[in-house]
């Protein structure tokens, strides 16, 4: 998977490139908005990581421009500004996610992967969480290589949790996903399904974990902590 990193700070661009490289991405790093424009026109990148403050322009402008040109490339914006107006502006301009400096490289990699895990994107077909692998096209789940048979409801829940790996998925969102499958949804349907799913994953020796955020929803981690 090929990423474009637009960052004017040389040292930061360097460490981003090496960290993302070790995570298995092919990274092109450019330092100006002009170079970024050129690169975007030449290469079909899977995602872009953009710094907001560039010497010859604003990262947001660059992004809005790319969106107008019909490039649907997922974009993660990096900024030293964390004022909420900036965040809203960034999301309005078409950024898919937002990361405030300073951030941990693991966080950046996780967020980048999350971007790519969206349906139809580079990582959208095969979702991974530790040794749990979900093939969203073949609809089958393998834990450490062994196939795990799951009912449709649990599959839907697992897929969504894996697409949002490391983030909280509200219970209401999971309920929505099940409406099409179950005609009538019992009030404790989600906890019951999650309970079964959790038990089955543990029995198969999955390293991934499903955590409950009581009163909000659920969160899946790949178990590397």
């Amino acid at each position: 998977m090929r990423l474009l990193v637009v960052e004017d700070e040389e040292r930061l661009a360097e460490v981003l490139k090496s960290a993302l490289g070790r995570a298995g991405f092919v990274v092109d790093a450019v330092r100006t908005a002009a170079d970024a424009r050129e690169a975007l026109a030449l290469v079909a990148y899977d995602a872009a990581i953009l710094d907001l403050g560039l010497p010859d322009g604003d990262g947001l402008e660059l992004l809005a421009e790319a969106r107008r040109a019909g490039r649907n490339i997922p974009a993660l914006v990096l900024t030293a500004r964390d004022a909420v107006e900036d965040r809203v502006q960034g999301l309005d301009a078409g950024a898919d996610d937002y990361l405030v400096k300073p951030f941990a490289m693991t966080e950046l990699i996780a967020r980048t992967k999350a971007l790519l895990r969206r349906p139809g994107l580079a990582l959208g077909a095969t979702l991974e969480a530790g040794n749990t692998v979900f093939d969203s096209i073949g609809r089958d789940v393998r834990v450490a290589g062994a196939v795990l048979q799951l009912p449709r409801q649990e599959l839907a829940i697992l897929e969504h949790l894996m697409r949002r790996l490391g983030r909280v998925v509200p219970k209401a969102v999971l309920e929505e996903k099940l409406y099409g499958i179950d005609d009538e949804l019992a009030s404790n349907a989600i906890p019951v399904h999650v309970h079964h799913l959790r038990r089955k994953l543990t029995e198969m020796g999955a390293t991934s974990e499903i955590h409950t955020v009581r009163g909000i929803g659920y969160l899946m981690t790949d178990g590397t902590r």
Partner: protein
Amino acid sequence: MTIWPRSLQAQLVLRLTAVFLFAVAAGVGALLYESTQTADALRRDELLQRAHELARFVSRDGDGTVRVALPAELDQIYRAPTTTDQFTIRSTAGQSLAASQPEFAASTRDWPPAGAEPRYIRLKHFGRSGQEYCALTVRTESEAGPISVTVARAIDGDAAVHAVLTDFVFDIAWAIPLFAAATLAVGVWGIRRDLRPVRAVSERAATIAPEATGVRLSVERLPTELVPLVVAINKALDRLERGLMLQRQFTANAAHQLRTPLTILTAQLDELAAGTQADKLRGDVARMNRLIDQLLRVARLDSTPMSVDASIDLTAVAAETVKYLAPWAIDQGRAIGFEAPNDPVLVRGNADAITDALRNLVENAVYHTPPKTEVTVAVSADGTVEITDRGPGVANEDRERIFERFWRGPSVKTPGAGLGLAIVAEIVRAHGGSIEVGDAPNGGARFSLHLVAA
């Protein structure tokens, strides 16, 4: 130690009272002196008149002897046993011709002969009653030739002076305290009235605080004497505000500038293999990151006036905060739970600021709760959020101080500079809400944040 009061009112009262006392004393003194003088003069005139009157009754018989024949009514007055009027008539040679009483004649026998000018003498302790007498001796002409007449009258107390004083007290003096009181009242009332704008300005000045430096004092309706002071204070405030603004901008800029190098540092540490040394460094950098984050939040709170008028759903804001922090809390090995009523809880405030406050409180709770325990965030319908941990709790004596800037407890293990709770307290204050910390029912600390219902 000085006992002189600094209050203008008290000073005015004291000064005016002193002036009044002095004026009254001087007036009464002058009056006494004048009336005494007048009484003396009147008495002398009367005595002289009487001496001349007596001389009219002195005549010489055919045989050459001098006779004094008083009319009956005068004789009665002078010879009455209780009389206080006395006289003696002597020849110019000093020989006594007549006297009202022998004792009086005796006591005047040795007096030098009178001259043409009247002489006044005071007799102390004369006669039966031992009264003080005022006497006059004068040489005057009579039918019998020149004679020396001495008349005396007991000074009947100072009846005349008393009469004048009594008149004075009843006719004039009673008005003096009234007049004084009225003047004082007008003075005090005037001062209070003139100082009312000063009090208004003081109240306004009391609202000046680090987070409200835009306040300036109005000179409207202020006594002109005080205008230069207030103008000078306003100018001083301008300078202070400028300085404060520069300092805040500096803090914000410094924190921003530090972010990129810190990101690089963090990234490079991530590249190091796990190990004691690298882990320690990672911890240090995490602490620095948090400190810079807090500094930025403080700088932002200080520099931008916060609008707290929006009606916001506290449940939504709190749920968003829990959602945001849950991955991190779980990564720390702690659980996080959320409780809220089904209906929205509307409060008046600024969603970003309240998010900041809740984030600080939840982060704090996660740092203090032991592994595998839950931090609970509970919203209630009255606009309260309670953040409960299962940690050691906050000691009674620290419950006020933990909200002060840069305060860190003796055994604090959280990263940061002790700004988090101060930020929370400032946000809460700006919202007109309150925050306190107490014990949770099952041990641990419970922070209760109360906001104003919308």
